[in-house]
């Protein structure tokens, strides 16, 4: 008699715990679902508000005070220039630093200190870089509120990410690549340059593109440096500049609700640019993976 009862209870509790399990899975699945739904909601609202404003005039005009005439051409060009200049500064230094840390550095105190430093720099809030940019580049180096100052600020902000990604890409290359080259008498640099770097390049480029996509969307570092209004794009390194995230910022805060629609149209343009950059990065990574010889 008792055994039957015990068996019943055991059966019930097993059923109960399986039921609990299903509930648990459902709860955690819905956590994931929350993120997905939020993303869809966000993209949908931005697109529905802004899509009507996108036309050729919008992409070729300057940001007029009249909403029907306002466009983002100087902002697009400004963002592109910022990006190119940031690349020009950050790539040589970032890749160079990564090569040093991955290939040349010994395991000493200074190297470990550098690595820690770089890790910590990656976590500094972007607005702090804005303060640093204005104190060092705008005032101390007297570059004024210029394209040069803005891109230097973005470059030092992107540097830690680029170094970390590039170093990782170099480390992944198997030792044999280096050993073969050194065995026939090549120097360290020659080995890196001809036998390691080319194979790490796709990953490095992917990482650079990703670091850059963060930089192009950042508002805080250039908040102190960019301009509010310009009719034409910058024509020299020392000119003021507009940028897409800044334009979004000012139009979002504008009292006239028509500018809110313009802001969402600008967001669409920015997201499209980011999408294509990431698409290129994924394509490069994919192509490299299929060609990978190890």
């Amino acid at each position: 008699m008792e055994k039957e009862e015990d068996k019943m209870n055991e059966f019930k509790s097993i059923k109960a715990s399986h039921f609990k399990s299903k509930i648990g899975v459902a709860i955690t699945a819905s956590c994931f679902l929350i993120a997905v739904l939020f993303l869809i909601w966000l993209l949908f609202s931005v697109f529905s508000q802004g899509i009507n404003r996108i036309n050729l005039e919008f992409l070729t005009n300057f940001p007029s005070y009249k909403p029907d005439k306002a466009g983002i051409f100087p902002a697009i060009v400004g963002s592109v220039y910022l990006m190119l200049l940031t690349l020009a500064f950050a790539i040589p230094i970032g890749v160079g630093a990564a090569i040093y840390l991955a290939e040349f550095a010994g395991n000493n105190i200074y190297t470990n200190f550098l690595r820690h430093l770089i890790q910590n720099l990656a976590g500094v809030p972007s607005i702090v870089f804005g303060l640093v940019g204005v104190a060092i580049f705008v005032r101390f180096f007297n570059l004024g509120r210029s394209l040069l100052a803005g891109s230097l600020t973005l470059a030092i902000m992107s540097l830690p990410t680029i170094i970390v990604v590039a170093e990782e890409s170099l480390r992944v290359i198997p030792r044999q690549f280096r050993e073969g080259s050194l065995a026939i008498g090549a120097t360290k640099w020659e080995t890196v340059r001809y036998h390691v770097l080319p194979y790490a390049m796709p990953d490095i480029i992917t990482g650079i593109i990703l670091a850059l996509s963060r930089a192009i969307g950042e508002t805080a570092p250039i908040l102190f440096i960019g301009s509010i209004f310009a009719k034409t794009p910058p024509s020299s390194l020392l000119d003021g500049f507009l940028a897409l995230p800044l334009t979004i910022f000012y139009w979002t805060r504008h009292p006239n609700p028509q500018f809110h629609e313009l802001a969402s149209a600008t967001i669409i343009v920015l997201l499209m640019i980011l999408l294509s950059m990431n698409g290129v990065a994924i394509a490069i990574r994919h192509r490299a993976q299929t060609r990978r010889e190890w």
Partner: protein
Amino acid sequence: MKRKSKERIISYILLLTASMAVFITIAILYALAAGAFRFFADERVSIIEFLTGKHWVPSGGTPSFGVLPLLAGTTLAAGGALLFGAPVGIGAALYLAEFAGKRVRAIAKPILEILAGIPSIVYGFFALLVISPIIREIFGASYFNAMSAIIVMSIMILPIIVSVSDDAMRSIPKEIREASYAMGATKWETAVRVVLPSASSGILAATLLGLARAIGETMVVTLAAGSVAQFTFNPLNEIQTMTSYIAQVATGDIPPGIAVDAAFAVGLLLFIITLTINFIASHIVAKIKNGGWRRRRIR
């Protein structure tokens, strides 16, 4: 001979580029410290009042620089974001690591990457123009309110919490789970009673990284949470965080002089706080990557 000296020159150049990290750090410290020094050197300012005062009134006839309202604002915004974001993030990570099928995991990665890749200004736009009106409608909050920023920021920090927690959970070997199943535990019980505790230090690190990210966030709070520095923990109120004060100095009508220097002092404080949190978190992450879990005894 030429090759050798060329090699040495190149290695010095490379050392120099790596040392840029040092130069940058020095630049950051110099910029913040110089401004903060100028700020504290002014006779109207005292460090004690700065750290303990409850009134932040940077302009006008009798300015007052107590940073507590800004700290309260940052705590409310970041803390609130963590309060919502951490459970959801850990839950989602648990789902992806333990329960989800291959297909779900395959689309989860790109979705999280997209969430992480959306610029914060876009989140700020959404917070002010979509979320905030809803909060105002339902709760009668003020035009600028902390709640709208909190909701949006909790989603913003999801990718980092999910990915680090997920890594932590995945690094637990299969055998541990299998032992648990062998004893008759369900998937859920295994996940909650075995995986979660073992991965707890990794999850803690994930939470800290999410917190640091929320503390350093500028655009969402600047656009949606407001610019009135008041010492409050009511999310329906307008607040000003440390980051949005600095942003206000960049874009608003702050007169040159002491109020601008105050931004550097606030920036220095912000830098120290985020550095500390990131430092602790990265230490924990390093431990995991080196197989640190083994040192934890599984009860």
